């Protein structure tokens, strides 16, 4: 099984966000960047599939030069190859252009399945996996919390989370795209030898020139969704701490919920 995994580098979830002066983006200087947490489940699943069936794990990442750090993390975990899709023309793109460029790169490699995170925790769009599937004319399953493969029959059984604790079992023919959710597995830590090896690995770089695309298709120009201003949500202020003995405090709280908040 050859497995392609698409990852993204994002600010760590503990980051306290500060906006730039013209409110068009966040300040990225000095913040810790990590592999998108959902992509870690995708990488781990890819490694597990490789361990079971053999094959190769290829990491693809569209992003700035700095994204190489996230790629190295995936390589250190055990991935075999990696491609960085980096070009000034790609900047300012949206889910549509990201999926388009990734799909072009994927067309140049061999894969039996494609794994991604179910969303990136920066822009929270959760659209790239579906765009990939559409451009490559493949089926996809999103919010995957379980995956069983039947390589001989070229199919897979994916468990996906829907709503209210409900899950669906979807049978899907391969190749297919799977968007991974927390709970699918427990991502491994990179081993020290893994880290040393990853440092030496060559990371292939591809830009616009390598694809049959022009400037109008990619980056801000090709984007279908135009980003406007950013703002910070209004800060909540601390309300009241209800004093007194616990039974009185509980009674008082319920009274407030009825009279002030009008909830009960």
């Amino acid at each position, binding site marked *: 099984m050859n497995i392609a995994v698409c990852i993204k580098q994002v*600010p760590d*979830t*503990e980051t306290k*966000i500060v906006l730039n002066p013209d409110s068009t983006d966040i300040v990225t200087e000095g913040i810790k960047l990590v592999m998108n947490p*959902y992509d870690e489940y995708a990488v781990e699943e890819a490694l597990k599939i490789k361990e079971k069936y053999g094959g190769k794990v290829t990491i693809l990442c569209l992003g700035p030069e700095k994204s190489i750090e996230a790629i190295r993390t995936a390589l250190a975990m055990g991935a075999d190859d990696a491609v960085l899709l980096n070009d000034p023309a790609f900047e300012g793109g949206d889910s*549509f252009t990201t999926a388009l460029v990734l799909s072009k790169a994927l067309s140049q490699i061999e894969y039996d399945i494609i794994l991604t995170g179910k969303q990136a*925790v*920066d*822009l*929270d769009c959760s*659209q790239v996996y*579906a*765009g990939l*599937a*559409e*451009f490559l004319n493949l*089926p*996809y*399953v*999103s*919010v995957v*919390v379980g995956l069983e493969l039947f390589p001989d029959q070229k199919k897979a059984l994916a*468990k996906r*989370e*829907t*709503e*209210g*604790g*409900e*899950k*669906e*079992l*979807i049978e*899907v*023919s391969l190749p*297919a795209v799977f968007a991974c*959710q*927390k*709970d699918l597995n427990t991502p491994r830590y990179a081993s020290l030898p893994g880290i040393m090896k990853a440092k030496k690995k060559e990371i292939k770089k591809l830009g616009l020139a390598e694809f049959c695309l022009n400037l109008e298709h990619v980056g801000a120009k090709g984007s*279908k*969704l*135009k980003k*406007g*201003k*950013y*703002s*910070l*949500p209004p800060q*909540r202020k*601390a309300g*009241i*701490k209800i004093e007194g003995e*616990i039974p009185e405090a*509980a*009674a008082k*709280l*319920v009274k407030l919920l009825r009279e002030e*908040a009008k*909830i*009960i």
Partner: protein
Amino acid sequence: MPGIWILAEHKEGKFKKITYELLSLGKKLKSKNGEELCALLLGSGIENLANQLGPYGADKVYYLEDEVYKSYLNESYTQGISELVKSQDPSILLAGATALGKDLFPRVATRLGTGLAMDCVSIDLGDNGLLKTVRPIYAGKVLMEATVHQTKPQMVTLRPNLVEISPVDSSKKAEVIKSKPDLKREDLRTMLKEILKGESKKIDLTEAKIIVSGGRGMKEKDNFKILEELADAFGEGTAVGASRAAVDSGYAPHDIQVGQTGKVVNPTLYIACGISGSIQHLAGMATSKYIVAINKDPEAPIFQKADYGIVGDLFQVVPLLTREVKKLKSEG
């Protein structure tokens, strides 16, 4: 004639609340651009459902009726919706940011070559005919404005529980138009094998009006039942949530996790029990209308965001709250 289209979501013979919310929003948009408001639904044996949407504001209802739509699959639904949209050319296409909407719309948007603003908390129509949307990013730490500016239809998914449902006009009838897809079961590459029901019948966190949430302070899995009891006392529209710390400690399943790597929620009331309030958790629940914090530690950051706080042992406080809520409810 272009139109404002909404995807009507239904389950087990009933519309989901988001369907009425979308129609109510659609009416507002229609009052600005004068386009007709249309509902779109797919399913098997849904004629009766299709006839119910007029009173909620739909001028037209397009329904795709076929056995192949009996259970939702992004593959078949994308095909059906895309074909219909291409032939009718609406200017706006809205769905709920529900499990279904979030799974389906990205592919429909890509197939139609248009843009999609996902998981919006605010949608308004500008004078130029473009929707001004606001979507939370970084799990709600930032709000981003976005528009679909050069392609059609403008696609948006709206987070549930944000729009007040407008009054129903029972005399209003919609024109109901049935279509049959050119799609065969054997052409599909995906198949729904089974639906695995959840442990409880609680509604999804993203749709809940009241959420009772537990953190590391819950100490063990079994203790979540005191939160269930409080949720039950509040009645319908209530769900139990958990912080990442509680999920990672194995006290609660991930599908009820609130926060940056869980669900972003928007209830009227959020009761945080034994949750200290990490930045990731606060991001996921900050838009709650009222926040209550119960924690032994008076210095817990959650108190900085809570409207009401009780410093005390949750195992003492929560059962007392349950008792008080029940008492108040029985008094009517």
